């Protein structure tokens, strides 16, 4: 059944890899199913990215208001506004503006921030690292804590298991912005042990840099940890009670081998999928978290830009965030296919 999936249509089902020509192609496809899958997935990603640019552009331009009114303030005259619009090219038809934007994108030019008169790419270069660091650290915390607790809960039934699952249920039901506010209030406000606001560049002071990131990273990462605890525990526990696990014990494997090699492999595909999809959520969550903790990331950048109808900046930021998301999902799919070849069958 599984083999027929990889056979191209029109070939007899019994075609063996040894046959000439088609046989050789088939052999290649059989030997590198993951590579083939990766290539296909990459090709599909290109139109997705193209359509995405159109959506981003429309979304930004169809909202009423423009940067000129913000720029010139409430007392600007009609003529003044019209002149500035003309000067900035905002009077031209939307499709012309879109084509211009895309042409720029292809050449690596994301446009210019009309208000600050700086290239958008430079703004992004300044803000993106903060957000990425926040999201990646949060994801790292989520995975380490979540997978360890999940394994622990699954392998040690009893009080520990119930406590872990109880905690993760609580963790799942707390919204991260609330958690962020509480962490800021307790550790930053009441106990005064950690800074609850502001940012220090790594190059200025590495220790302070990380001290400032602890609370936002926890606010963002603990939810993912709770989710991954549940998922890992569920999959590992189901595996430990399944015939394959019984057979592994009958083969004389150690508990550790069964837990870390076999059941973790079982859980790895879902875990990687969750990490991949959550990275998108984390990027979104970072926007709010950055606002709470006053971090100069993409979130801060885009929130201000939206308020000012600063098209090019909003466009650029959303485009970068969505591209990261699409590429992460792509990468996730390929890793999952590598980890668990069963994933190939449903999708090819």
């Amino acid at each position, binding site marked *: 059944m599984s083999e027929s999936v990889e056979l191209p249509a029109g070939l007899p089902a019994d075609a063996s890899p040894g046959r000439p020509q088609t046989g050789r192609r088939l052999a290649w496809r059989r030997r590198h199913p993951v590579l083939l899958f990766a290539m296909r997935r990459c090709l599909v990603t290109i139109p997705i990215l193209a359509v995405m640019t159109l959506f981003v552009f429309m979304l930004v331009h169809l909202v009423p208001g423009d940067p000129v009114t913000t720029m010139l303030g409430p007392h600007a005259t009609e003529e003044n506004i019209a002149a500035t619009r003309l000067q900035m090219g905002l009077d031209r038809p939307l499709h012309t503006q879109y084509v211009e934007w895309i042409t720029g994108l292809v050449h690596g030019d994301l446009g210019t921030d009309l208000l600050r008169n700086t290239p958008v790419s430079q703004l992004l270069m300044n803000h993106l690292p903060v957000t990425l660091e926040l999201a990646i650290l949060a994801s790292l915390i989520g995975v380490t804590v979540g997978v360890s607790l999940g394994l622990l809960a699954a392998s040690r039934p009893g009080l520990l298991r119930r406590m872990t699952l109880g905690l993760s249920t609580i963790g799942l039901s707390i919204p991260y912005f609330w958690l962020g506010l509480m962490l800021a209030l307790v550790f930053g406000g009441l106990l005064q042990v950690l800074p609850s606001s502001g940012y220090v560049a790594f190059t200025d002071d590495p220790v302070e840099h990380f001290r400032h990131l602890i609370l936002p990273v926890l606010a963002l990462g603990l939810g993912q940890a709770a989710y991954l605890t549940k998922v890992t525990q569920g999959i590992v526990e189901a595996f430990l009670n399944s015939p394959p696990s019984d057979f*592994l014990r009958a083969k*004389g494997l*150690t508990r550790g081998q069964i837990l870390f090699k076999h059941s973790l492999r079982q859980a790895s595909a879902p875990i990687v999928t969750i990490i991949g999809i959550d990275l998108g959520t984390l990027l979104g969550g970072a926007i709010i978290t950055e606002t709470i903790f006053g971090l100069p990331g993409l979130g801060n950048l885009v929130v201000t830009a939206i308020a000012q109808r600063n098209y090019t900046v909003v466009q650029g930021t959303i485009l970068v965030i969505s591209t990261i998301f699409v590429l992460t999902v792509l990468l996730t799919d390929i890793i999952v296919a590598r980890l668990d070849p069963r994933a190939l069958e449903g999708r090819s």
Partner: protein
Amino acid sequence: MSAAQTSRTPVLSVEDLSVEYVTAGAAYPALSGVTLELAPGEFLGVVGESGCGKSTLAAAALGLLPANADSRGSIRFDGEPLAGMSSTRLRELRGGDVGLIPQDPLASLDPTFSVGSQIVETLRAHQRIARRAAKARAVELMDTVGIDRPAERFGQPPRAFSGGMRQRIAIAIAVANTPRLLIADEPTTALDVTVQAQVLRLLTRLAKDRNMAVLFISHDLHVVTQLCDRVAVLYAGKLSEVGPARDVMDHPAHPYTAALLASIPQGRTTGRLPSIPGEIGQAALLPGCRFAPRCAHRMPVCDTEPPLAARDRGGVAACWLAASSAPATLAEAGPVAASRRDVQSGGRKDVP
């Protein structure tokens, strides 16, 4: 069994083994007072209907009873009690000295690892052997159990193999470290008839070549009597009869054995199979003979525990009838005890 063999220490000896499963506060006796011995190189068949405790016996012999099982009695491997073994020694035993072919081999391989790596892993769990040498050995084993182009198929996942081929992989894993005892839990139930015969031939060949003792578990008395030196018949967790295979077949001393033999279809049947009237149900909870409610020879005395009576040509039978007289008439009484009924589908009892 030659006299020389029986005089040696048994590979496996089970003495007065009782296992109870406790679920939601209620205890269910899956095995009660089972005593068995298996000589080196011997083929012992264990037969019984679904739910009579066959897999429980296999699990107990590997020291792998589930957490909710309560067991009494003793199990010895080569004279060494399992109960006294360290967890390291137990792990050495499992997959090393004792190989298991699981009841559901199709579902028992790990779907996320290649079949080859699952064989290699077994080898490396028990032998100091380099990865490369283990791989060569695994390919060799795949060849031995009859997998075509083993080197090519080494890296494929279980789902690329048919049921019969997966069964062969499970067998390769079970015999990988040349165990002294092989426990085969209904090794052919999941396979169709032609494949069954091939797999059985493979098993017998391997066992003879490697001089393994085999505990062959089956619900098919016919297969067991053809394959095994001795047969043990289990009913609702108790041994009802143990004896030389041929003799149990020709002269069953227990009415349950007779009824089982009678329910084996002779030649081709068309949709109808003879079966034993009644069901096991909660027979394990009965005070006297557990088969009594379904027995055609039931007597008042059957309400009390039957003694283990010696059979004429070796072995024992747990039956008042066997205890009082030679049951010469039982073989003929069999067909009377069994009636023709429609084939029941889905009669297997699922283990929660």
